[in-house]
């Protein structure tokens, strides 16, 4: 991983390399996360949620939301431990889905965090001015009061923009102080609530009715308060500045959820038991105050100092959240500038402070503008919606990155129970997003408008200017077939030595599929990680030669296209090419040896596992005549494709295919003849081409290996076992392929539904 981004200084004649200072501790980043989460959400949320779902609903809302948030936090934690760079969701989407999606992710991230920041600035101003008015220090009303509130919001936003400009350490220290202050205050409120309930158990009657409006209202309150758990976003942004990021980022994310959920549940409990003798059910009384319900309840709980304590806590909470959101939004726009998705100025770092001052300037502009002029509550609902979309996307990213690049990444954390947490989070977040529509229709205007503007900017600005990342697969030379009309075969060539045998075998498939078959030949140029991708052309000579060899055989008769690409990982390159070219069949070679820990090899294993088309892997298949072909048969899902391949590979005049089945003693054998009677007409080959053969043996592998000695070619279907299970447990087809001394073809048929999912994932 690159250690830090660079900036070209415009003020100096020579380039100055500047990078972030790495000095944020685990406590600091945890507190930044907690600070962003608690924000103002809990204070506004308790009263509003009580109104809708009742006293039990509030407690359940926070507890259940914490579980879903933890699922997403684990996705963030895993990805942050593998990609510890400023940018968070933008970086994850860049690696998982490419430039377009990542730009939109970063664009949403920037907006959501900036607008959330302005909401916190306004919350601070409202509570502070209200308190000062109560004390008689401020005497204003009407429009004057609004002006004072706006002025206070701008002042506090400006103050935290300055703190962020001073440096990450100052930001972290300020964040830690403010967050510790608010957490201690809230913990104190929770403890007083518990002590009161113990001293006066009659107050527990406030929990009746537990869910006055029914269970379904729980979904509304969960949707409304879910974003109060968004703080792990800011932790992901600290990848360039945290000490030991692979260890500390995931820890901070999960710790922050733990701290926050107990705080939320504790203060909600205190608010419910705090109310007494008000002449109506507690939940109706608290709910009637809406956003101020929490404050009113705590004033009842602690009559002498509740009001001042809540005010101070809200001031602490909103300022620490403001600090964290400015930090997060700045890093999101910095990352876009770093990769030239936005103008390079966004990535300029201050030579002394080492903070992205230009990104901070633009972010500060948004925060102050929104706080000054726009109806913040509705715009903040849009921000909430975009946070939900972001979390949705990140959960997809974690699945895709694991599937496609798991062996290339260095993970500091892998989530337990994968893939249950991200899938559960995706499903529940989708439901909550739908419920959010009912809460704020304006959010569905503001949010999509911002996304559409992002798409326009990407289309006309970022797409042409975006920098290439080290993980991208880059096309070196390409002569593609314009459009796919017929059956398309993708042949993956590694070197001139395997070009001719693969071309000849491909030719046989072409003959079987008809004259309009299209052939795409691809050569992946693996570039070692220590060599820059710009130097990749030095490694391309063997590939060029291989393509020319194949072209000589195939191009005169069939539609022919060729591509050379360079990449860090050959398997990923081949899989993406097969999906991109919409290949029906992928042909590749295998030299017969493997790296430790793989079934067939570091390239063949993932290709067989993840390719979205039929795959045929050829081992030692030179220019021999295939008179006798053996197909070991166990009735698996690849049996039909194995028989089809056998019928194509066998010499049509005088060749024969033996379908061989080994059953353990005492167990019934499979009825091969019935299967062949059914399959031969489907394959449009004479039934007489196939013969069946049975054996009874405890040692299936040994018996099949013994049988292979009498044949010219062995064709076997690959296992459907997942890759990891194969590596750990082993599977018969793969072991057979390794030990077979005869030419061998291993095939795997496309599974339509799985292929569709794989194409997207």
């Amino acid at each position, binding site marked *: 991983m690159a250690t830090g981004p660079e900036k070209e200084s415009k003020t100096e004649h020579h380039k100055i390399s500047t990078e972030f200072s790495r000095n944020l501790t685990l406590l600091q980043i945890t507190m930044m996360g907690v600070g962003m989460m608690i924000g103002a959400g809990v204070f506004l949320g308790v009263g509003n949620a009580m109104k809708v779902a009742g006293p*039990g609903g509030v*407690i*359940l809302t926070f*507890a*259940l939301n*914490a*579980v879903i948030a*933890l699922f997403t936090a*684990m996705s963030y*934690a895993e990805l942050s*431990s593998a990609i510890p760079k400023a940018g968070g969701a933008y970086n994850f989407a860049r690696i998982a889905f490419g430039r377009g999606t990542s730009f939109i992710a970063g664009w949403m991230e920037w907006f959501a965090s900036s607008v959330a920041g302005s909401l916190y600035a306004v919350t601070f101003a409202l509570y502070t001015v209200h308190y000062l008015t109560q004390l008689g220090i401020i005497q204003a009303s009407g429009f004057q009061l609004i002006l004072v509130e706006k002025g206070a919001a701008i002042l506090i936003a400006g103050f935290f923009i300055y703190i962020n400009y001073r440096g990450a350490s100052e930001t972290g220290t300020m964040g830690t102080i403010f967050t510790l202050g608010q957490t201690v205050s809230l913990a104190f409120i929770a403890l007083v609530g518990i002590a009161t309930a113990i001293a006066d158990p009659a107050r527990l009657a406030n*929990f*009746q*009715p*537990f*869910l006055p409006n029914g269970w379904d209202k729980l979904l509304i309150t969960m949707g409304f308060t879910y974003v109060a758990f968004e703080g792990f976003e800011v932790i992901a942004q600290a990848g360039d500045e945290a000490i030991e990021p*692979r*260890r500390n980022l*995931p*820890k901070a994310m*999960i*710790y922050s*959820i*733990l701290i926050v*959920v*107990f705080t939320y*549940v504790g203060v909600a409990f205190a608010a419910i038991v705090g109310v007494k003798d008000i002449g109506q059910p507690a939940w109706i009384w608290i709910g009637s105050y809406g956003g101020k319900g929490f404050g009113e309840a705590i004033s009842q709980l602690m009559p002498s100092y509740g009001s001042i304590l809540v005010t101070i806590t809200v001031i602490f909470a909103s300022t620490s959240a403001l600090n964290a959101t400015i930090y997060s939004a700045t890093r999101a726009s910095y990352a876009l500038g770093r990769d030239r998705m936005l103008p390079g100025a966004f990535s300029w770092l201050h030579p002394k402070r080492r903070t992205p001052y230009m990104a901070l300037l633009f972010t500060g502009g948004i925060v102050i503008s929104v706080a000054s002029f726009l109806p913040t509550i509705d715009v903040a609902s849009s921000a909430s919606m975009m946070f939900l979309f972001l979390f949705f996307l990140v959960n997809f990213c974690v699945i895709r990155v*694991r599937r496609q690049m*798991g*062996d*290339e*990444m*260095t*993970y*500091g*954390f*892998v*989530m*337990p129970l994968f893939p249950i947490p991200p899938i559960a989070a995706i499903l529940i977040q989708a439901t909550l997003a739908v419920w959010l529509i009912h809460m704020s229709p304006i959010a569905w205007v503001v949010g999509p408008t911002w996304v559409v503007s992002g798409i326009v900017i990407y289309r006309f600005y970022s797409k042409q200017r975006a920098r290439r990342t080290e993980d991208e697969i880059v096309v070196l030379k390409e002569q593609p077939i314009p459009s796919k009309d017929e059956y398309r075969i993708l042949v993956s060539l590694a070197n001139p030595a395997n070009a001719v045998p693969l071309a000849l075998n491909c030719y046989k498939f072409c003959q079987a599929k008809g004259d309009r078959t299209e052939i795409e030949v691809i050569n992946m140029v693996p570039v070692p990680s220590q060599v820059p991708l710009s130097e990749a052309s030095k490694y391309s000579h063997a590939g060029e030669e291989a393509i020319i060899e194949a072209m000589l055989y195939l191009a005169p008769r069939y539609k022919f296209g060729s591509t050379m690409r360079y990449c860090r990982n050959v398997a990923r390159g081949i899989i993406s090419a097969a999906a991109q070219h919409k290949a029906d069949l992928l042909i590749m070679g295998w030299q017969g040896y493997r790296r430790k*820990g793989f079934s067939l090899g570091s390239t063949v294993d993932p290709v067989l596992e993840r390719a979205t088309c039929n795959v045929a892997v050829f081992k030692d298949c030179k220019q021999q005549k295939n008179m006798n072909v053996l197909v070991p048969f166990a009735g698996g899902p690849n049996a039909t494709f194995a028989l089809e391949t056998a019928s194509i590979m066998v010499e049509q005049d005088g060749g024969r295919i033996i379908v061989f089945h080994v059953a353990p003693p005492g167990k019934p054998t499979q009825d091969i003849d019935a299967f062949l009677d059914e399959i031969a007409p489907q394959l449009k080959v004479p039934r007489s081409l196939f013969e069946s053969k049975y054996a009874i043996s405890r040692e299936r592998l040994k018996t099949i290996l013994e049988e292979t000695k009498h044949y010219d070619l062995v064709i076997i279907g690959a296992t459907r076992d997942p890759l*990891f299970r194969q*590596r*750990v447990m082993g599977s018969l087809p793969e072991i057979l392929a390794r030990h077979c001394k005869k030419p061998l073809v291993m095939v795997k048929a496309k599974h339509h539904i799985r292929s569709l999912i794989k194409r997207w994932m």
Partner: protein
Amino acid sequence: MLSVLSYSSQKKKRRRVRFLLDLNIIIGIILTVMALSTVVILTLWSRRIIERIHARSPGSLRKIQKDIINGDGA
């Protein structure tokens, strides 16, 4: 007779409502405890995984999974 019947049905209804309320509280408490326990367990489990990985050194997914399957991991 009729009034006795209606009194009896009202009593039953009240008992049923009371039972449902109690049931809501019981389910609610169970759900809350389960949710909070899940958060605690997953947090501790994740922490343990992080420490195990860093006790050796961060690595590829395959390496980490192998450690876990071998039983000396998380």
